[in-house]
């Protein structure tokens, strides 16, 4: 075997076993009373969210032609680890600050939603990080995300359900901050491409995400706002999907559709509107937001990415900046504008609230960037067995291939 061959047998299993043992022990201490009672999260809505995060995002990322096992498999591993860790973090915060105790289903739902951050960040380094790095990233990122949420809640008095919708922003900017620490694969590497077959699998994931997005945005909201959020999300998604098709034809040279545009731009509307959905009072506003989100995503991935990436040395493997980051920012700005418009008559007295709104999303982005930068430094340690550029986007490096002779 060549010198840069890494054997994970002595590290990955023990790290995972250790984490799981710690989780089981902590669960034993933290959840000793029978706190099960009626839940205010409806179970079907939780199912939808869980389905989106595990199935939808897992297959959404399966567009690299030799990285499909890892895209779906590692996604499952990270989520099950992260959900347990996230539930424990919540439980710990409860112990320290005596918040209101939540029922089990709600804590799992919140944990699943917060795991979106990790999935988005791992998408930014898709194909470049090994399982150890991904697990470490999960642990750090979930802790950082809960910290940022907790600051928002404690000092800026932001509601829990709104704070939870920062997941896209946080995940995207955390991932972008981590990505410069991984060297860029050579541009003409054939592994870094998709095939019609892998694009189709990615479409499978996209469709599930699209269908369940209204549940994602509404699952943690208070009961009265749920319907508004569902309608708004639905209309925004519909518009962004239509716009994606139109713009894709418009921007490609020979007037054909490009699958990558369809994948990301159809979802941008859901990201954008997630932040402000409860405060949108006409469907038309949601539709405009969906349109803008789609424009940003398609044009961004078309023009901006090239210059931005070369300047900042970011290699954004799956375009998370344009699928999740910028639409998230757009949503946050829209939220502030809507708030200003709503309180136009007594703007003076509401100034403080407006500043808080702006403060929250700036805070989320800065916590994400800083913690992402630190995580990136940690991930580059030799201890974590960083993989060489030649092994990027390669399933064979992590998975058994008994069928290698059959061609793949």
């Amino acid at each position, binding site marked *: 075997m060549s010198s840069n061959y890494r054997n994970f047998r002595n590290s990955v299993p023990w790290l995972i076993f250790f984490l799981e043992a710690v989780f089981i022990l902590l669960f*034993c201490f933290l959840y000793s009373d029978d706190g*099960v009672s009626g839940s205010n999260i409806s179970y079907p809505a939780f*199912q939808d969210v869980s389905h989106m995060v595990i199935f939808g995002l897992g297959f959404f990322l399966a567009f690299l032609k030799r990285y499909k096992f890892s895209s779906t498999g590692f996604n*499952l591993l990270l989520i099950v680890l992260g959900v347990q860790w996230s539930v424990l973090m919540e439980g710990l915060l409860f112990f320290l600050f005596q918040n209101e105790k939540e029922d089990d289903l709600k804590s799992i739902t919140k944990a699943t939603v917060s795991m979106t951050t990790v999935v988005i960040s791992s998408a930014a380094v898709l194909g470049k990080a090994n399982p150890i790095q991904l697990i470490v990233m999960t642990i750090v990122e979930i802790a950082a995300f809960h910290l940022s949420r907790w600051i928002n809640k404690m000092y800026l008095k932001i509601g829990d359900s709104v704070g939870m919708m920062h997941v896209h922003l946080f995940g995207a900017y955390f991932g972008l901050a981590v990505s410069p620490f991984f060297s860029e694969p050579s541009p003409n590497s*054939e592994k870094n491409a998709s095939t019609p077959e892998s694009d189709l699998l990615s479409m499978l994931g996209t469709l599930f995400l699209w269908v369940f997005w209204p549940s994602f945005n509404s699952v943690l909201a208070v009961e009265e706002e749920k319907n508004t959020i569902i309608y708004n999300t639905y209309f925004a998604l519909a518009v962004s999907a239509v716009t994606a098709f139109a713009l894709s034809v418009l921007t490609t040279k020979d007037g054909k559709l490009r699958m990558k545009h369809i994948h990301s731009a159809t979802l941008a509307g859901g990201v954008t509107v997630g932040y402000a959905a409860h405060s949108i009072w006409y469907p038309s506003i949601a539709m405009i937001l969906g349109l803008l989100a789609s424009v940003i995503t398609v044009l961004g991935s078309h023009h901006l990415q090239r210059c931005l990436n070369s300047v900042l040395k970011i290699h954004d493997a799956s375009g998370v900046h344009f699928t999740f980051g910028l639409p998230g920012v757009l949503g946050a700005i829209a939220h502030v504008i809507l708030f200003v418009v709503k309180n136009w008559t007594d703007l003076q007295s509401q100034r403080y609230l407006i500043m808080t709104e702006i403060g929250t999303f700036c805070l989320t982005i800065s916590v994400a960037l800083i913690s992402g930068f630190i995580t990136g430094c940690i991930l580059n340690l030799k201890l974590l067995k960083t993989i060489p550029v030649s092994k990027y986007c390669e399933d064979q490096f992590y998975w058994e291939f008994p069928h290698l002779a059959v061609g793949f």
Partner: protein
Amino acid sequence: MPSALDTNMRFKFSALALLLEVIIIVLFGLFVEYDSNNVSQNTIYPFFQDVHVMIFVGFGFLMTFLKKYGFSSVGINMLIAALGLQWGTLMQGFWHMKGGKISVDIKSMINADFSTATALISFGAVLGKTSPVQMLILTILEITIFACNEHLVTEILQATDVGASMTIHAFGAYFGLAVALVLYRPGLKNKHENEESTYHSDIFAMIGTLFLWLFWPSFNSAIAHDQDSRTKAIVNTYYSLAACTVVTFALSSLVDQRGKFSMVLIQNATLAGGVAVGTCADMSIYPFAAMCIGSIAGIISVLGFKFLTPFMASKLNIQDTCGVHNLHGLPGILGGIAGIIVTAVRKEIRATARFTPDMQAAALGSTIAIALAGGILTGGILKLPFLGQASDQNCFDDSVYWEVPEEEKLYEIHSNNHDEHSRFEATM
């Protein structure tokens, strides 16, 4: 060609399938009516949907891992499920008749879906080695026996099995293994060239795995007794699955020489946690105990795949294609044992009955005994030589029973836009 290997089933299959359907329609006409006096049914409709997706999409795609057997896996799976749920409605209904009529509601639809799961699990054990005609017969016989065993367990022994670890998973697995034992094919002793997966077929199987994984909490809680125990079942199953998945990844890397993950294990062993927690899912066992059960299930499932399945194939003459013994059989027994322990330690009461460890043990024992006996009997019937079985070298091949479109050659697949890449691939 001898008649035993005549795989043209144009008349046999269509005659048998139509005959069964006519019988079922007549029986439905005679016995089945709506249950109109139950109003709270809409709350469990989402659970029915989830179970339905698991049966048709989850089980179907889970079995698509064989490189030339995808059509049969998904297609025959659909056939078995569609036939089985009609027959299951009748069989389970006959045990609960009121005034000579079977009343159907959402709950009996869920139960009918459950009964098809047993046949689908057994299908996994004999996957690739049976004809559609044989599968029709197996479905009918197995669901009949299953309904009797379920009645014995829940009504006569008064045992609890909310997620059906014993009555469905252990039953289906051991039934299937007994059938596989009787239908043993010495000609397949050396691995058949088609009995393996490709990169693409494995990723399709992953679709099935994820659907099963995601909807397992619904499966274990669908027939729970009230809202409170339903929530408990959901939470316990979720944590058990989570712990099982994590442990499976760890062990998968550990048992491989080079520390790599194995897709077979990730596809199957990650689900063992859901099976194992089934029996005691609705009891107050706390997430902690559920995670312990899930971890143990993951361990025995991985070890089973690694050591037990090759041993059974070579020494015990049981060729278990999908490894159902490790995914459903062993974790099902573990679930039964967990049920015994939990009822021994805690006092669990539902409605009128108190669950006792003796009855749980009796339920586990009777399930496995009936499954094995029924499986051997069924296997004997399926061995009849005129059921359209394929010859040994035609096993694991769709083209025996399906019209398969002409396969493109490897270098032509991506020829449109990745010419140089695909040529590189072809030479690899």
